[in-house]
Each structure stands twice: as C-alpha cells, then as structure tokens.
C-alpha cells in the first residue's frame, strides 16, 4: 500500500518537475492556445458577408454598445463583438497559412544556393533583394490583388511571394553566419561533405530560428491582410478591415460600427506581437526543453 502511494507521489513529483522544466514553453504556448481557441470558437459562421451585414434595411435595428452587446449591433441586429471575433479569426488563419508557405518557399529557394561551395553563391539573392526594395511590398500586393478584381486566394498567393522574397536574403545571411562556426570548420577538417555539414550542422539551427520568424511575421501579416481588405481587395470576406471600411459609410448614424472592430484588431495584433516577440527572443537567447 505504502509502496503504491509512493509510486503515485513519485509520478506526480516527476510530472510537476517536468512542468517546471517546461515553464518557459508553457508560458508561450498556453496564451497562444487561449487566444486561438477564443478566436475560433463558433467558426461555423465564417461564411458571413460584410456587404450583407452592413446593408441598411428599411428599419435599421442597430443598437449602440451596451452591457448586452459590448460593441453594439449592425443594421440587421447582428452582434458586432462576435462578428469582429470571427473576422479576426479569418485574418489570423490567412496570416498563418501565408507565413507558413512563405517561410517554406524562402527555405526552398535558399536551399537552391546553399549547397554551392562558391564564395559568392548568395550574390544573386542579394542583388534581387536590393532591387526589390525599390518596389514596396504593399504596392506589389495592391497591384496583384487589385488587378485580379480582389480575391482572398490571390491575396494569400501575394503574401506568400512577398514573405519569401523578404526572407530569402535573411536566410542567406544565416546560412553564411552558420558556416563560420567552429563546429562547421571542424567538420570540414574532419572531412565531412558539404551536404552533411549543411543538413546536420547548419540547417537545424536555422529551422529552430524559423519558429521565431513565424511568430514575428504573423501579426505583421494580419495587419497587411486587414489593410488589403480595407481597400476592398480581398473579395467580400469577413475581415476587420472590410468592417471598418463599410462602417465608415455610417459614421454619422452608427459610428461604433467602424470604431469597435478596429479595437478588436488592435488587441489581437498586440497580443500576437507580444507573444511573437517573446518566442523569437526565447529561441534566440536561451535553451528550451526538447518539446520545442
């Protein structure tokens, strides 16, 4: 009996010790899960169209913000808080998909150059990067999405290309920095092939940093997606940008319809930026438990 108790206690102790060891990871993962869980609850209603919601019926049923409807309601009585939450869920989904594929594309493009042993193998990437800065990313996205008549698919494609374009020179720098490490030089002295060194020594370090890049890019891309939808270039999809744009047509009658969605957007972007900054700082400076 005593032995069984002590085993349970030992198990519990091990569990808590493991939790304590993982405290830094949990401190980052739990807020993410809470935020995303809160955003995506009730995701089945994501096919609502802002043009329908913000249409003015003959007898508008809008209500200003009160205890029941924190953000007020639209002309047809829909709760603006719920709509803003769903809109942010859409924006975050777009950002997550775009950043994931953008990073993957950037890594793929960098890997085309990294196995070349030449000294100036990243020169082409750098030249293209320096020239590309002359055309701001927002200009590219506006032309691309506007030319196609505005659709979310094209916006995601544009975001992926822009992210990959900006990340390629950064990855090139990281690969070159990684090659100057003592372990890499020692690997060359020991006769390891370039492929072995890149795949086993340099790439793991870069992959680890990419998690931080992902976390840092997501809030920025959320802002860009909202901006494009504000400009009306992502189709008739629910997004805080589109809600603010439609709400500006009702500034006199119902000003809350353009004020409160922006408040929600600011809150979500701020939390994502804070978490992103913590994730990239943690991955840059300190060791993390294996789970990460």
């Amino acid at each position, binding site marked *: 009996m005593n032995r069984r108790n002590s085993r349970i206690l030992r198990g519990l102790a091990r569990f808590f010790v493991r939790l304590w060891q993982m405290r830094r990871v949990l401190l980052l993962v739990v807020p993410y899960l809470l935020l995303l869980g809160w955003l995506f609850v009730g995701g089945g209603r994501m096919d609502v169209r802002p043009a329908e919601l913000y249409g003015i019926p003959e007898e508008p049923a809008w209500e200003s913000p009160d205890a029941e409807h924190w953000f007020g309601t639209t002309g047809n009585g829909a709760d603006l808080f719920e709509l803003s939450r769903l809109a942010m869920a859409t924006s975050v989904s777009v950002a997550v998909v775009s950043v994931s594929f953008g990073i993957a594309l950037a890594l793929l493009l960098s890997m085309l150059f990294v196995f070349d042993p030449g000294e100036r193998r990243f020169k082409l990437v750098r030249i293209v990067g320096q*020239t*590309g800065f002359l055309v701001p*990313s927002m200009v590219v996205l506006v032309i691309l999405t506007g*030319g196609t008549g505005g659709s979310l698919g094209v916006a995601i494609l544009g975001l992926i290309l822009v992210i990959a374009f900006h990340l390629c020179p950064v990855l090139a720098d990281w690969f070159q920095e990684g090659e100057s490490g003592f372990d890499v030089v020692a690997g060359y002295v020991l006769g390891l092939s370039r492929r072995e060194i890149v795949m086993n020594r340099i790439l793991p370090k870069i992959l680890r940093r990419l998690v931080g890049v992902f976390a840092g890019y997501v*809030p920025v891309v959320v802002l860009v997606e909202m901006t494009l939808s504000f400009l009306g270039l992502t189709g008739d999809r629910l997004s805080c940008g589109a809600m603010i744009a439609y709400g500006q047509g009702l500034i006199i009658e119902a000003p809350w319809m*353009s004020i409160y*969605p*922006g408040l929600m957007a600011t809150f979500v972007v701020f939390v994502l930026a804070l978490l992103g900054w913590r994730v990239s700082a943690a991955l840059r400076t300190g060791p993390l438990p294996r789970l990460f």
Partner: protein
Amino acid sequence: MARIVLQRLLVSMIRFAAAGIALIVLIEFAFCVIGGSDLHVWKPDSYGPVPPELSPRPVSWAGLLEDRVRVSLPVVVLCIPGILLIGYSWGLLGARLRRFRGARLLASPFSLFACVPGFWFVGLVAIYSYFHWRRPGFANDLVVERGPDLLTWWHAAIVALPALAAGAAWQIRAVSDVLEKEVTRPYLRGLFMAGYSEEDIFYRNAFRRALPQLFAISGSTLSSVAGSLVCLEYAFRYPGIGSLLVESVKLGSYGGILLSALALAAALSLAVLIGEVAVKLIRPEGVGG
C-alpha cells in the same frame, strides 16, 4: 568622389530600370494573365488620357503626377526626417543602454502604436474631428481658401503619424541591433583590456566602424514606410501619390499605376543612392565588404 557618385548612380539607374520592368511584368500578370483583361500594358492604346476620377480638372499625366507629388510632399517631410532622427538617436541610446534593454524600452511606445491598424487610426481621427470639432474629418472634405493653410499640415501629420511610429520602431531596433552586434566583436575586448574608456570604445570605435551598416539599413525602413503611406493616404482620403496608386488600381488605369509606383520607386532609389554614396565616402579603413 565623382567616380564613386557616378558609379553608384549607374548602379542605381540599372536597379530602377529593373524595378520598372518588374512592375510592368507584375501589372501584365495581375490584370491580363489572372484578371483576364484584354488591355496589355505594352500597348499605347491601354493608357489614354487621365480618367476624370483621378483628377477633378483636366490635366496631363505629368500634371497629375506633379499635383499628387506636391500633396504627398508634406507627409514625406514630416515622416522621413522624423523616422531617421528618432530611429538613429534612440537606437544609439538603446545600444548604449543595452544592459538595461534600452532599445526595447525606447522602441516600445512606437511598437505599441504600430499594432494599431493605421487605416483605422486615421478614420478615428476623422470621427473625432466630426463629432467634437464639428467639422468634416477626412482630408478631402474641406479646403482652406483664405489665410494660412494649416489644415494641410494637420492632414499631413495625421497621415504621417502611423507611418512614423511603425518606421521609428523598426529603425530603433535595427540601429540598436547593428551596434549591439558590433560591440560583441573581439577587438573591442582588446581595447577594453588596453585601458580604453567605455565611451571611447563605444563612440570612437564601435559606432564609427558600424557607420556603413547603419546607413545601409534605412533602405528597407523607407520601403516599408512608402508601402504604408499607400493605404494611409487612401484611408484618410488624402489625394497624394499613394492614393493615386489605389485609385488607379481600382479603375484599372495602367498610366496611374505605373506613374505612382515608379514615382515611389524613384524616391526610394534616390534615398538608397544617397545612403550608398555616404557609405562609400565614410567607410573607415580596414572595414571590408
């Protein structure tokens, strides 16, 4: 010096030409390949005169560009020097106070403001202006006909403020990162061991050697600021070069798109050229790359 300037000017012109070709390809791809338009970007018939939606009075393309650039100039005058001044001075201070995480602390108010969607902020100003000051809020609502035109500068400040916040936050961190990386180099430890004071090491050695890199980082900041001005001007109904781009894209006017995008590219090209010439001229001896 003349050789350096001419050399960088040539490189800059080649880059600008490449950016122009990339823009033409992008417009063709977006409008014709994906959008299914019959108007090709290389055909002169696709341009025509300036659409009346882009200008209230009949003007040529050059006149339209001149009008829009003139309107955007106050925004640029407020925004760019502000970013460079705050970015470099606070970034330097942040790197100097790196033990107390100075850069993060100094950049935090700007980073916080950068989380606010700019198009929403300018809309808020318009709503506040309408309800509290009892006057039209957006930039195109009221024109000053007599007296000093302070309203132009007020509108320019509203558009410039969100762009300035985001740009300054980025610039502070970038400047501080460059300097913090420089002060970890081994030669500085040698100087410290040799008895140099901390100020001497930081300002006379680390800072001076990092100057070329510090000049080089402003290109990407200015590019992102130009991008944010595109949507801010449109959101505040400010008839500048940025809103010309969005209006032209919505109208499918190739002339307006090319004119505004090339004007932005030319401004960025000039900024990069100045930065590169400065880097070449001030590069300290012994710094490679």
